[in-house]
């Protein structure tokens, strides 16, 4: 190994330095991230101040030119898209991680991981382009207009699947081999080992992955913008076109001024609030699972 031998006298000093260094790095990161929050609050302050936030949940709809900033329809659309995408991607992603760890022939493990990494790295605009030229026309043949909640869910599922698969695989890899061998020695079937030992032991990592995937789904912009249809309405069926919060920001931000611009910044605060709640829920879930 590269590290030198440590003598007793240098022990505490090295540790203290490391604690200070990493601590100040963490603080710097926190400050940086605090700046992002500050920008958001500052930019959205004109509509938030004086109880203006109630306008986001009342009124006839989203008509920024007329000073109507009701975000509810887009909020439901956002949640529906992300929930739908998770509903598809989590089972598939965890399955493919289980496959890699327990079912796959050895030669297939690396190619499969490469595929996941590639899927993760395809730019969202390429997914959007593919969705717009291949997926949307397919759905349109079934039920026009094609650009719909369903298309958005399918594209998002494809985009977050690698996150779920890679993090689940890492979590499964971290399960001590001795646990698995013990279970095998007890005569458990492969299914018993997977469902009874490996997945429960890896649940925190899998949960983290699902959470990251949910955040990616909530924050995804370009691909959804191209396939979701972007009509501001509360979705009543899978084939309804919808507009999600991020697409709204991307579509209108370059053209917005005054209160309209502030309302767009405020809608990204709303997105962050959702993510915070998710993180909090996941944290609680993780804590419970620990007990």
């Amino acid at each position: 190994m590269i590290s030198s031998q440590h003598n007793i006298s240098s022990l505490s000093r090295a540790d203290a330095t490391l604690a200070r260094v990493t601590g100040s790095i963490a603080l710097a990161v926190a400050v940086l991230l605090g700046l992002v929050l500050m920008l958001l609050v500052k930019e959205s302050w004109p509509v938030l101040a004086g109880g203006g936030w109630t306008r986001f949940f009342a009124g006839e709809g989203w008509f920024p030119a007329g000073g109507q900033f009701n975000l509810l329809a887009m909020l439901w659309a956002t949640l529906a898209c992300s929930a739908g995408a998770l509903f598809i991607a989590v089972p598939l992603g965890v399955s493919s991680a289980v496959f890699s760890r327990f079912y796959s022939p050895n030669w297939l493990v690396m190619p499969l991981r490469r595929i996941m990494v590639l899927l993760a790295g395809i730019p969202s605009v390429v997914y959007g382009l593919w969705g717009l030229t291949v997926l949307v026309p397919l759905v349109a043949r079934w039920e026009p207009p094609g650009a719909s909640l369903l298309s958005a869910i399918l594209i998002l599922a494809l985009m977050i699947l690698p996150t779920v698969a890679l993090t689940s695989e890492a979590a499964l890899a971290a399960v001590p081999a001795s646990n698995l061998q013990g279970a095998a020695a007890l005569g458990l079937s492969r299914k018993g080992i997977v469902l009874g030992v490996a997945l429960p032991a890896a649940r925190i990592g899998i949960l983290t992955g699902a959470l990251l995937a949910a955040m990616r789904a909530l924050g995804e912009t370009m691909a959804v913008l191209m396939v979701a249809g972007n009509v501001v309405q509360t979705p009543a069926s899978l084939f309804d076109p919808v507009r999600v919060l991020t697409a709204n920001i991307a579509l209108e931000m370059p053209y917005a001024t005054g209160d309209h611009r502030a309302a767009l910044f405020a809608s990204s605060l709303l997105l962050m609030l959702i993510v915070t709640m998710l993180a909090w829920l996941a944290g609680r879930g993780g804590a419970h699972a620990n007990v």
Partner: protein
Amino acid sequence: MKNIEVLFYRSSFRFVMIALIAASLIGTASAAGQKIVLTGSSTIAPLALEIGKRFEKLNPGVRVDVQSGGSTRGVNDARAGLADIGMASRALKPEESDLMAHRIAIDGIGIILHRKNPVQALSDEQIKEIYTGKITNWQQLGGEDRKITVVNKAEGRSTLELFLHHFQLRNSDIHAHVVIGDNQQGIKTVAGNAGAIGYVSIGTAEYEEAHGTPIHLLPMAGVPATVANVRDGRFPLSRPLNLISKGAPSGMAKRFIEFAQSAAVDDLVTAQYFVPLAR
């Protein structure tokens, strides 16, 4: 821990140093000269980029940096001095009278349908009824029994404002099924849906139609939607592509604007499927 950081540093450091040295070698070739910054409309950005490249060739030592971000950004940046020249794919509004617009090209807006759709012409009144949701099936217009998919532009886009103004509509009256951002998204959406109707830039639609994209342009008020008719001013729906300056331009910015308005760039305007100025 330190070791690992050092190692990571070392390897990436070396990589970046090599990149930096390479970059600075390339950098020395271009002498530090004057720089013109343009920001604004994403529609104009590719054209401005090409004009900029030609301008750089004719004026050694000058650099033209083009940044996109929307017409409103172009107007704001020109006003705030963040950009030497703004780009806006629309006429200036009354409250923007502190700025000067310099037209460099024209862009016609035409209605497109899917190629399979047998409807060959629509009156202004019919288009209005389609967009307000009074007509919902092509059968009502002599076409096949197929639901109409109305493709509209997103709030704030100058093509939308132009469309609304021409048909005397308000955006809240429109019953859209798909709302799009950029021009190509409109063409791709209509090309992928046999029942769709949308409005896009005529030059680009002509190109796409000629290259096999399954769309066709409709005439408007009896005038065929062609680039030639837009140039003559006979086609009813068109918008200017403007460069924006704060007050009268001067120095290098003035030279650039004059160059962009001259016949020397007509071929570039045509190559981006816009309509050159009639001189």
